[in-house]
């Protein structure tokens, strides 16, 4: 890749601002509340943009474009039913308990509502998860920088081997994220997420514009693709008639309910952004404000994938794309190159003898194809920014959970506030150090990473059942919640062990306990694993709760729906009221689904 002076300048300007924000915030970070909760002083619109940005890591950006190229506009289900309803729910119904209770984190809410063991389980699994996620993000970024040869030229000029690029990328991203979180804590992460949000829009909007213009608009794009690519619901009646290989029920229950509510309503990574808001109504509006850009993001991140696969004449692009993936363009489709077997140097083939496409390169290929030097610098910076904010989100969630829910709860209970602030900064340092280790582990043991992610999925799947019962049924007990969570996780593992997607081999894809059912696709299997885990947790929690002693009502005020005063919002203008905003969001989401039916 030929980056010129102008591209480097743009990248440097961004990094200067990132670090500058951290430095500027340092003098406002005086207490642990400032560091971990941004002083609970952030306006709603900033929290809202950070809320969506923390989720918009590069895996999301690259993965959604890849999925767009692979499945078409049906990928928008991950937004319109896989995020929007849950975001409305957490804002309107759940935020009063998160923000209104004295909890400083999601695990701490579990402690207040249930007991120590439920919190411990959640805090420890969450802490481990964030460290690994941040490491995987770091690894993916270093890998992409390597594949795109971004730093190759300056490295060659300095006489360093190309392999040093990987180490350099890891160290650089770790150092930058460390610096700005160490200085400004959560506020610094949130501000940088807002910056990154605008940068992503600035970097990708011209890409979509140029791509659509090239193909002759939406109609031109449609003409190049099979009709299943441009319809999100047609064919969802049965798993056989749509590209996702999932039927509507599995999609709506698995993705739209269990997975989506489990993530947006219980994951501290995003909830932490809303909890930093300056008052209750701002905290409730945070996910609702985030829902508006979230709804239109498919046009920004999924469309480039569709455009990349639809471009009719790949040879015309080879001269450009060749700089990224040398000469393998013929085996690919549109702008998407085939995966290359590292041993033979030939395109990898699937069982039918067709080349396996490397969909993850959709976004990078599009950037290289359409952007001249200058704008290319901006696009790459946007991509790097999204990697870093994905890491930063995990790091801030980790240092808070570590300090409040593990260190303060089990190791050192009665230290001064200054000590916990110090510990938060230390946690940032060793959290990032552990992420670096995880990133290197990923280079060596790819299977271990896949397995860990699978285990995380088992742990996360039942969570929403616990929160739903905890918040809306005061009879739920701590023993019920704990046993429910554990059995939900076991149910997920059991379901995964007993089923297998069609065509997959026994192992990481499932079936390791013997295959009694096969799913039409891996996605369908994932959704049903989640449905089983959730249902098991829900039922077991209720049963155990019936047989154990509930806590008295007086201890549950502010933690349970029936014992908490409704937040009043009559004094707010209509566009500030969470319920009204939520209704508007849902209505727009329905319209979008109908338009792209």
């Amino acid at each position, binding site marked *: 890749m030929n980056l010129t002076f102008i591209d480097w300048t*743009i990248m440097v300007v*961004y990094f200067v601002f990132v670090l500058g924000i951290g430095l*500027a915030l340092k003098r406002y970070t005086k207490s642990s509340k400032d560091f971990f909760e941004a002083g609970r002083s952030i306006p709603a619109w900033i929290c809202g943009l950070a809320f969506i940005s923390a989720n918009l890591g590069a895996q999301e950006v690259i993965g959604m474009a890849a999925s767009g190229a692979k499945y078409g506009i049906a990928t928008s289900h991950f937004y319109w039913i896989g995020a929007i309803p849950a975001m409305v729910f957490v804002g309107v119904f759940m935020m009063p308990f998160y923000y209104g209770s004295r909890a400083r984190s999601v695990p701490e809410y579990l402690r207040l509502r249930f007991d120590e063991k439920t919190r411990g389980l959640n805090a420890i699994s969450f802490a481990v998860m964030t460290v690994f996620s941040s490491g995987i993000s770091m690894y993916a970024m270093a890998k992409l920088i390597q594949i795109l040869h971004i730093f190759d030229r300056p490295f060659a000029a300095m006489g360093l081997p190309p392999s040093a690029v990987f180490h350099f990328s890891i160290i650089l991203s770790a150092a930058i994220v460390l610096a700005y979180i160490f200085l400004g804590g959560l506020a610094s992460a949130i501000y940088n997420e807002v910056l990154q949000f605008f940068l992503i829009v*600035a970097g990708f909007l*011209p890409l979509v514009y140029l791509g659509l213009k090239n193909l002759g608009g939406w109609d031109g794009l449609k003409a190049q693709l099979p009709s299943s690519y441009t319809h999100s619901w047609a064919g969802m009646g049965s798993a056989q008639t749509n590209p996702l290989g999932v039927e509507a029920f599995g999609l709506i229950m698995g993705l739209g309910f269990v997975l989506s509510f489990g993530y947006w309503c219980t994951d501290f990574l995003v909830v932490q952004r809303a909890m930093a808001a300056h*008052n209750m109504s701002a905290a409730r509006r945070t996910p609702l404000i985030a829902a508006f850009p979230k709804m239109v993001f498919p046009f920004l991140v999924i469309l480039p994938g569709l455009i990349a696969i639809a471009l009719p004449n790949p040879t015309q692009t080879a001269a450009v794309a060749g700089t990224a993936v040398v000469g393998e363009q013929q085996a690919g489709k549109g702008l998407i190159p085939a995966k290359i077997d590292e041993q033979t140097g030939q395109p990898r083939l699937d069982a039918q003898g067709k080349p396996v496409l490397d969909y993850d390169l959709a976004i990078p290929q599009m950037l290289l194809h359409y952007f001249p030097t*200058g704008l290319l610098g901006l696009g790459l910076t946007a991509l790097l920014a999204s990697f870093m904010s994905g890491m930063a989100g995990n790091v801030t969630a980790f240092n808070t959970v570590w300090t409040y829910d593990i260190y303060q709860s089990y190791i050192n209970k009665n230290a001064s506030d200054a000590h916990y602030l110090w510990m938060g900064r230390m946690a940032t340092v060793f959290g990032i150090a552990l992420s670096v280790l995880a990133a290197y582990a990923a280079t060596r043991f790819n299977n271990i990473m896949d397995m860990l992610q699978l285990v995380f999925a088992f742990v996360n799947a039942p969570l929403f059942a616990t929160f739903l019962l905890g918040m809306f049924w005061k009879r739920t007990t701590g023993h019920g919640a704990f046993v429910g969570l554990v059995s939900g996780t076991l149910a997920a593992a059991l379901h995964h062990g007993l089923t297998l997607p069609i065509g997959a081999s026994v192992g990481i894809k499932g079936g390791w306990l013997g295959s009694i059912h096969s799913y039409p696709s891996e996605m369908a299997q994932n959704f049903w694993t989640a449905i089983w885990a959730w249902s098991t947790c829900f039922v077991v929690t209720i049963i155990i709760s019936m047989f154990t002693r509930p806590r008295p009502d007086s201890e549950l005020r502010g933690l349970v729906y029936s014992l908490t005063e409704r937040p009043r919002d009559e004094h707010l203008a209509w566009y500030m009221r969470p319920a009204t905003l939520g209704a508007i969001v849902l209505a727009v989401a329905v319209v979008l689904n109908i338009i792209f039916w």
Partner: protein
Amino acid sequence: MGLDIRTPIGLMFSVLGLILAGFGLIGSREIYGKSLGINVNLWWGIVLLAFGAMMLVFGLRTSKAQAEAERVEH
């Protein structure tokens, strides 16, 4: 927080806009074959500059008023 985020956002996008637009004005025209013949650096630079300037104006003008209003709200 004492820092209005719109100020740094405005500043950054103004700088990036100026760099891109400036480069679009003085740089070679030949590189725009990729972008369908459109001088995207110039045009997108102008858009970013306008956005940055707007953020900067809002940030600087309301940061004082907002601090005041927040104190009342608490």
